[in-house]
């Protein structure tokens, strides 16, 4: 069970549920990017070269809002910071990997692959783990590209799709991701602070309002965490 070939297949198989979950988002991303004015090549290029779902969604909404380049880049960085945590968590399992493996698997490190791979290393051991992670990564990567392409086809073949109010898909997606987290009080505080700030500052040039609001939200969350410390510990244990 520890030879490379079966490990690649095992990684792929364990990632299938994640691929099914990511599919619709790839499709929505492809469609939205086209209606936001990206060319089909640039839309596919973003999925191929950036390969970070949430950042890609945020970038498309920023592009259609007319944000400045540095704001888009900086937001991408902020939205991606959680990957540093995944990188740190996987690092002890990667001691035997060559530099080449580390770079390649870093490029493909997503929320989904992290969840699958970290669970596997912890419960099944890390022997030849790079092959397992390769299987998971390739599954996510090809799946994301495929569904982006389907979205691009849909977006470019239906005329006037941009007037259908598809931008609502982004709102619905973001709201559906955030809402369940609001059960944790510090996160609720972070969201309220960020939302209020972005409404107050709405219209600042280059979408700077977004960066300021996100920062205010994070600081508010950290402060609230101090106030609600007992509850936070309880939710983390659960």
């Amino acid at each position, binding site marked *: 069970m520890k030879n490379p070939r079966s490990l690649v297949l095992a990684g792929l198989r364990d990632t299938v549920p994640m691929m099914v*979950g990511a599919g*619709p988002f790839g499709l929505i991303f492809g469609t939205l990017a086209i209606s936001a004015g990206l*060319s089909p090549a*640039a839309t596919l*290029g973003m999925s191929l070269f*950036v390969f970070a779902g*949430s950042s890609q969604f945020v970038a498309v*909404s920023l592009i259609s809002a007319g944000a400045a*380049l540095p704001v*888009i*880049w900086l*937001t*991408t*960085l*902020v*939205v*991606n910071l*959680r*990957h*540093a*945590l995944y*990188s*740190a968590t*996987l*690092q002890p399992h990667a001691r035997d990997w060559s*530099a080449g493996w*580390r*770079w390649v*698997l*870093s*490029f493909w490190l997503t929320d989904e692959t992290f969840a699958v791979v970290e669970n596997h290393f912890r419960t099944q051991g890390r022997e030849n783990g790079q092959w397992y992670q390769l299987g998971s990564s390739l599954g996510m990567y090809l799946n994301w590209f495929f569904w982006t392409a389907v979205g691009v086809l849909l977006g470019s073949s239906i005329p006037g799709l941009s007037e259908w*109010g598809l*931008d*609502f898909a*982004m*709102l*619905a997606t973001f*709201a559906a*991701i*955030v809402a369940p*987290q609001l*059960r944790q009080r510090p*996160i609720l505080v972070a*969201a*309220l602070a*960020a*939302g*209020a*700030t972005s*409404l107050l500052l*709405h*219209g600042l040039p280059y979408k700077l309002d*977004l960066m300021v609001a*996100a920062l*205010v*939200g*994070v600081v*508010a*969350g*950290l402060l609230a965490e101090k106030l609600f410390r007992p509850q936070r510990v309880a939710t983390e244990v659960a």
Partner: protein
Amino acid sequence: MNHWLVILGMALATLPVRASFLVFGHRLVFPPLLHRALHYVPAAVLTALIVPMALAPKGEVDISLGNAYLIGTLVAGVVAFASRKTLLAIVVSFAVYGALRYF
């Protein structure tokens, strides 16, 4: 705007973060404050994006039943909060949004 430039910068803001500890791990320490701050990034960034889009889709604040973006977003939030099912929330809210906008 050159979208390839957007992509290049985004790639440069993505790969080094993912590679950080896996490639340069022995030289890095994850700052505890950053670890705690990360917990709040998704909710802060996404809410900061959502609120102006939902409350003022045409540039001015519009709190009314006629604002399909606002009602749809609220529906998405409530369904996701109650069911914890992201896709279900998207589908239901899209139906409500579509109904408000086109009927």
